[in-house]
């Protein structure tokens, strides 16, 4: 018995000594698979220009941003964490203020004066002061999910990190890319993915967010800047577009793959024809608006299209007796060259999408925005101001007919809903998901921004002031 007791006493002690300090088995490295379907919706980022940012009525404000197509997409896919650089009303517009240090907000239709004019104004100091909250998300510590920058060119996506470094010195880069907040440095080229890029660029911020789903709509301004100036000169050459677009999408795919370990889904959109937007009008439309032909003709012959701003020029009594200047007209050959460029760009976009998909770095699809915009009905792509006479001055009716905002280039709420649905259809096609479409009927555009009607304006001869005309084109220059 004593031996048994001794054994029972010693055994636990020996076992304790044996086990003391034992370590856990090495855990195995499990495998996780690439996200599929709706799992990709967990981290959506939008890249692009003003069309992506929610730019509307010649400016950026929460009223437009709330219906930006990326935000509409994020709502439909259930991504609640989507962030944008929200701008308080009256927003940041394109109209130059005569007083230094002041800015105008977005444009609106003033029902009392019967004209388009800035909604309001603000001191620039107040706009950029974080304490005022005018730029509502200026101190958000992470990059925005909507990285669309009004005025961005293709080249800017990888290279611009502030206004000074952007091709056209666009100030929106300062508060959307926020290089002064994040810091910026040129990042050495990734092996096998040759282009170097700026660390605060739209491209780098997208990669840093480790996005699983990216939409990219870029290249419009590479054409529009010339077209809105009435010329076919100054467009980004096709070979440059080819090189930069290939580098951007290829490096984006490679960067995201390197960052997350999985191929991302990238949805591109191509470039719409300039004939799809109300900013360009036919000679017949021009003559109908001015109630007759322009007696002094045009500087250019073979005019095919006029810019909407030609109406402003024609309404100025000082111009009576002068032919319409060339910067307000596009000739047949200019339109042909621009449309050729659009077709070439779109061919490049299709080719890059196919090539990157084939590489396995990402799954890339293309939204045919060009076909969709071309397919709009005439009223849908007619400017609100030109629809007013047709509706006998009924603002709501005219606003409901067009899909474009007062600047004639950027969609209104309803128009952005159409674009969102184009992307959603492509996402569903690529991922096999069933994301519901945006309810377009719910996207009502109010060009008056709620300005109370005191004295109904006359419906005939709507006026487009030179300042507003300048605002409509400023973003492309």
């Amino acid at each position, binding site marked *: 018995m004593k031996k048994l007791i001794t054994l029972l006493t010693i055994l636990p002690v020996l076992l304790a000594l044996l086990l*003391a*300090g*034992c370590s*856990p088995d090495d*855990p195995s490295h499990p495998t*996780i698979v690439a996200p599929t379907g709706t799992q990709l919706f967990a981290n959506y980022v939008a890249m692009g220009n003003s069309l992506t940012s929610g730019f509307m009525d010649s400016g950026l404000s929460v009223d437009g941003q709330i219906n930006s197509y990326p935000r509409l997409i994020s709502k439909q896919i259930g991504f609640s964490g989507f962030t944008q650089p929200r701008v308080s009303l009256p927003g940041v517009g394109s109209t130059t203020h005569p007083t230094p240090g002041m800015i105008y907000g977005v444009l609106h239709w003033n029902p009392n004066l019967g004209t388009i004019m800035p909604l309001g104004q603000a001191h620039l100091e107040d706009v950029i002061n974080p304490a005022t909250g005018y730029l509502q998300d200026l101190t958000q510590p*992470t990059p925005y999910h909507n990285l669309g920058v009004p005025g961005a060119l293709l080249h800017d996506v990888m290279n611009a990190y502030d206004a000074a470094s952007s091709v056209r010195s666009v100030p929106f880069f300062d508060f959307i890319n926020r290089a002064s*907040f994040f810091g910026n440095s040129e990042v050495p080229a990734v092996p096998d993915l040759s282009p170097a890029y700026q660390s605060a660029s739209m491209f780098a911020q997208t990669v*840093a967010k480790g996005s699983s789903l990216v939409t990219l709509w870029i290249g419009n301004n590479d054409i529009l800047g010339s077209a809105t100036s009435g010329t076919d000169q100054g467009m980004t050459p096709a070979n440059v577009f080819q090189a930069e677009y290939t580098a951007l999408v290829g490096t984006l795919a490679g960067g995201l793959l390197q960052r997350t370990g999985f191929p991302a889904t990238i949805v591109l959109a191509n470039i719409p024809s300039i004939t799809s937007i109300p900013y360009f009008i036919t000679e017949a439309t021009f003559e109908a608006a001015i109630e007759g032909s322009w007696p002094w003709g045009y500087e250019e012959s073979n005019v095919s299209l006029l810019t909407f701003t030609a109406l402003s020029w024609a309404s100025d009594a000082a111009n009576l007796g002068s032919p319409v200047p060339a910067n307000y007209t596009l000739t047949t050959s200019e339109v042909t060259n621009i449309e050729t460029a659009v077709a070439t760009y779109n061919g490049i976009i299709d080719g890059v999408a196919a090539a990157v998909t084939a590489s396995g770095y990402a799954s890339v699809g293309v939204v045919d925005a060009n076909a969709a915009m071309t397919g709009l009905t005439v009223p849908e792509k007619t400017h609100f101001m030109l629809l007013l006479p047709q509706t006998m001055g009924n603002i709501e009716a005219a606003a409901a007919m067009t899909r474009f905002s007062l600047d004639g280039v950027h969609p209104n709420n309803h128009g952005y809903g159409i674009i969102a649905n184009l992307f959603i259809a492509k996402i569903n096609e690529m991922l096999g998901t069933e994301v519901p479409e945006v309810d377009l009927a719910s996207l009502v555009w109010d060009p008056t921004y709620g300005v109370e009607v005191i004295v109904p304006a006359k419906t005939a001869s709507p006026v487009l002031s030179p300042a507003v005309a300048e605002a409509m084109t400023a973003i492309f220059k």
Partner: protein
Amino acid sequence: MRKVTPKVLLIAGVLMACSSLVHAAGFNIYEAGVRATALGGAFTATADDGSALFYNASGMSFMDRSSVSLNIMPIQPRMKFAEANSDVTEEVAHNTFLVPGAYYTNSNNEKVAFGVGVYAPFGLGVEWMNPTEFVGRQVSYDVEIQTVYVTPAVSFRVADAWAVSIGLDVAHQALDLKKMTLQPTSGANAIDTHIEGSSSINITPSFGLMFRPNEKISAGLMYHHEKTMKYEDQDVTMTNVMDPNHPNYVWAATLLAGLNGGVPTSTLTPTISSELNLPSILSIGLAYKFTPRLALEGNYVRFGWGTFQSLPMDFSVDALDQEIHFNYKDTWQVRFGLDYVAIPEKLNIMVGYVHDKSPQPAASVSPILPDADRNDYSFGLQYKHKSWDFTGCYMAVIADKRQNIENDRPANPDPAYPVGEYSNVANIFGLSVGYHF
């Protein structure tokens, strides 16, 4: 009836003050007594020493002498993490944590018995090696939670075979969490955050019931009520740890300045208020003596972990407010202990086994607490000499490997949470000395 002596309270106070880092392979530490631990914690129906203050205070009514006892339980947690789709493996620092226990019981087979115990039933300590590089440092690279209960209880012998008890669990908790914020575009270490809190005192009731119809059978029930530990205006230190020459240094500097009302600072010291819920504990036990020298007890223990849903963090700087979600579920354990009297009045040999179900969903398996189902194996010896007893035990806590992966995808979509497999064990040792009078 004897009174609690000032010396006993002094000892309790000292233990509470120096109760160092506590930890087990989970948030609960069921090891309140060395003899109980040797029996796998299956002690609700036995409860025959000072640790009855935790396991079932009704046991005091069946003790024939008063006692004072002191426990010390060194715990050595060992944990590793293997990241998914990579060859990165991480490991916690090799720390030894001390879980204290001190008990006084006044029980002389009278109608009323009472006592007071100091112990640490909840705690956590996970310190990862290489904190500046650890893959989960955005969630936490070092966390400590210490919870000390002081439980005074009184037990009534309502009948020969029955006793009921009621006690008050007076609890205090300390929380210490360290995490690193990374600069979002470069991934560089940017802001080192240290949250250090001490809760207010929380008091909740506990109950016990003991039924001993004869010498062979004993049944018991123990219940400790759930708690909410409240923290008010505790210390937070956020330090800019980026190299000033780093191209992204401006981010950390601007962020801290923004949080500081626009005034540049390298260290921000806001305050934090929070609430941390602790679960209720219900144990039902049945013990049977096969012979006068051999007894077996089994316990079913129910934890109300469903109360531990999240840790809200309300900072004095509103922009920092956040909430860590845990979403625990109620869970259970089964415990078995075999007690053999090797030499009557001299030597007991004890062994135990525990199966412990984790309350933690895969989505909240994280560097703060990667919990898993566990099997524990224990044994111990108790030697008695005159009015003294000396007890030693060892328990091996073997946790199942645990992945925070569901359907081959991360269970938690937050990219700050590292995805992979955790493996952990803990070695628990115990030593106690008791004096009976």
